[in-house]
């Protein structure tokens, strides 16, 4: 009796694995087209910014029938460059899009990877958000001018908290230092692993100022526990009641843009098709809703405009990373 139960249990478990394995095999084999089955690679762990972006895209595409099925695959690691390396080996695959963005440019430069954005096909830039420089509520600095003066006088004594090294927060601190007029290498930058930790670092007065995405700080700014001195947006953004650096006379702008790339070696037709998919997704009401919820701003661009933008940003990021002495 007992043996029979065990045998049945064993058979059941085997059956489940068999079904799962065949399902997996059928999904990984064969050539699908992007319209029938699209794979979105999020080169980040579940729960991160790029993952959220990928899942919002997936949702908008699927619900509106832009593609039949879309799945998200997470390939986390090293600022997205692990994912980029994998994409670099998928030459000619027509059913894959990977999320990319500003953070990846810094990571490519920093890790000196084999694959760069030159080795993949740029598809679109879709949404941006902006960074903000904040100080504790009890900080002596009321405006960015005050802060710039104090910071330039004693860069070492003004620790700046932000995300990981070579990330957008770090680059922004370097650009600001350069614009204010001291050597970016003097920036006393303290790297944290996320916006939450940057916030506690500012609240505990460990750092003189913190840099992170505006959305991560917006409630604290509104509640008055921290004071925002400036944002990195090029133009004032609706709903953000903080002057841009440019408005305050510091010619610094940087956006945390997000977009898609596809593998290299795809035909022009496929490229057109992928651009069309993203364009259609971008036009849906679900995507608009996603942008509002995540407080992203629209920065849709494709084609030559996008190529120029990425080329410019690559040069700019490489230069500032060099200035920062990384």
């Amino acid at each position, binding site marked *: 009796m007992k043996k029979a139960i065990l045998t049945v249990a064993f058979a059941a478990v085997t059956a489940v694995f068999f079904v799962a394995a065949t399902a997996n095999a059928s999904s990984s084999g064969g050539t699908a087209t992007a319209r029938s089955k699209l794979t979105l690679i999020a080169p980040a762990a*579940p*729960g991160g910014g790029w993952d959220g972006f990928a899942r919002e895209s997936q949702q908008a595409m699927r619900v509106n029938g832009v593609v039949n099925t879309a799945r*998200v695959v997470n390939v*986390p690691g*090293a600022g997205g460059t692990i994912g980029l390396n994998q994409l670099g080996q998928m030459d000619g695959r027509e059913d894959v899009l990977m999320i990319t963005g500003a953070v990846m440019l810094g990571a490519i430069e920093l890790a000196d990877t084999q694959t760069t954005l030159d080795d993949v096909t740029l598809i679109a830039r879709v949404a941006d958000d902006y960074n903000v420089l904040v100080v504790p509520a009890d900080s002596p600095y009321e405006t960015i001018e005050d802060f710039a003066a104090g910071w330039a006088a004693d860069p070492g004594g003004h620790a700046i908290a932000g995300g990981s*090294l070579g990330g957008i927060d770090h680059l922004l601190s370097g650009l600001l230092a350069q614009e204010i007029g001291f050597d970016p290498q003097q920036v006393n930058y303290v790297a944290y692993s*996320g916006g939450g930790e940057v916030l506690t670092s500012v609240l505990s007065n460990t750092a003189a100022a913190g840099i992170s995405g505006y959305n991560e700080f917006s409630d604290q700014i509104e509640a008055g*526990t921290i004071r925002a001195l400036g944002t990195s947006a090029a133009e004032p953004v609706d709903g953000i009641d903080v002057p841009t650096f440019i408005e305050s006379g510091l010619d610094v702008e940087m956006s945390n843009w997000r977009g898609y790339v596809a593998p290299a070696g795809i035909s022009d037709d496929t490229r057109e098709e992928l651009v069309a998919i993203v364009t259609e997704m971008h036009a849906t009401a679900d995507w608009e809703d996603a942008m509002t919820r995540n407080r992203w701003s629209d920065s849709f661009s494709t084609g030559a405009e996008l190529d120029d933008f990425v080329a410019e940003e690559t040069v700019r990021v490489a230069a500032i990373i060099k200035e920062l002495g990384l």
Partner: protein
Amino acid sequence: MDQLGLLLEGFSVALTPMNLLWLLIGAILGTAVGVLPGLGSAMAVALLLPVTFSLDPTGAFIMFASIYFGGLFGDSTSGILLNTPGNSSAIATTFEGHRMAKDGRASKALGTAAIGAFTGGMIATTLVVFFSPYLVKLATLFGPAEYFALAAFAFVAISAVVAESVVRGLIALAIGLSLAMVGIDGPSGAARFTLGMPEFLDGISIIVVTVGLLALGEVLHVASRIHREGPAMSIQASGSPYLSWREFTAAFPAFLRGTGYGLPFGAIPVGGSEVPTFLAYGTEKRLAKRRGDTDFGSRGAIQGVAGPEAAGNATAGTAMGALLALGLPTSATAAMMLAAFQQYGMQPGPLLFERSADLVWPLLASLFVGLVFLLIINLPFAAVWAKLLLVPKHYLYAGVAVFSVFGVYAIASSMKDLWLLLGIGVLGFVMRRFAIPLAPVLIAAILGPLAETELRRALAVSEGDLAILVSSPITASLYSVMAVAIVISAVQHVRHRRANAAAQAPISSSAL
């Protein structure tokens, strides 16, 4: 009491049938992923994020929270029964828990763990409801110097675990520190010990280390001895999970001590619940020594399960508080929930309690209900779980091996992790063979990077001025407590030796 009224209103939402269903699903799912080595509540929440997209936020968060708590209930089960903790938060529980299981008290250990998790969670959640604004202050009092002091304090406090053989303990510490050092160094951006492979830039996941060392290592160890020990292994599955009054009075202070460690750690970002569980274990071990309790470390003492388990769940309670009131994720699961909040267009922080009161209070109320659910699920089932030990060993450990590999592959779908798992598993096997303790490896892998990063951050902020390390009242008092503890233990050590020498002297003279 304003909070009480809001909480009661919250209960009225949390107790609707639909929300109770989510709660139950979360509790069962959380317990399940907790039990399986490698799978954790963080991963369960991550995988569910896209699925819950179309759910109403209250239901989704109620489910997430009960997965979080459920994970902490479940993780000790496999640790106690099989010596393969489901998660790093259960490592400390495993030491004494598995000893109790070997002694035929598996159900008792599981019962103690469930009650401990319940007690810790209950006290923490109550505190969060009434004192979350103050709890949040705690997070802002801590800068890098304080974190470093805390890490140093934890190292000293848990050195009790290392103490049996100094050389072996140090070998284990060194292994742990070197495993933790792989990857990009945060403060400088330099890649360390990556062998030039980009896959290693993000370091070695603590999950891979835990599962490899404890689960796979144990499987290899058992496999290597299966014909030598045969069925002589005397784990009995019988016994009641309920504590007798005497046992309860023994465990109760340990529950409270564990909770005491867990509470503050939930509110500060020092890597989740591992540190307080180790601290609780170290404390119970010291207290047992002082009491002259010989069960501890041999037959398994109930306090050694009670303390760490209460500590683990207490951190989860205050971690929820820190997440809701400050937007600070202090554990991996809390970080996932933060992402979930953002998915719904909400930002946890000081304004959440005002803006989304209709979500926050039902969520807090559901934590209480969830803990009761989990206790009901886990306590009577302890005896059923313990029956798992009746499954023939070769099936049981084959299952553990399969789930370990699944769990690790699920983290990042990376083959590298599987090779690492195998390598670390073999390492764990070799360490068992040569009686090198495993705990210091994990302690070093968790505390080492924390101590290093915080020390360097502190010195960066102070521009190299060492005075920052001792300048705040928190650091000063932590170091003084540490100094006193070291002096006391040194004095005890010397006395112990003298006593031993004195005890041996008459024997040798009488032998003459």
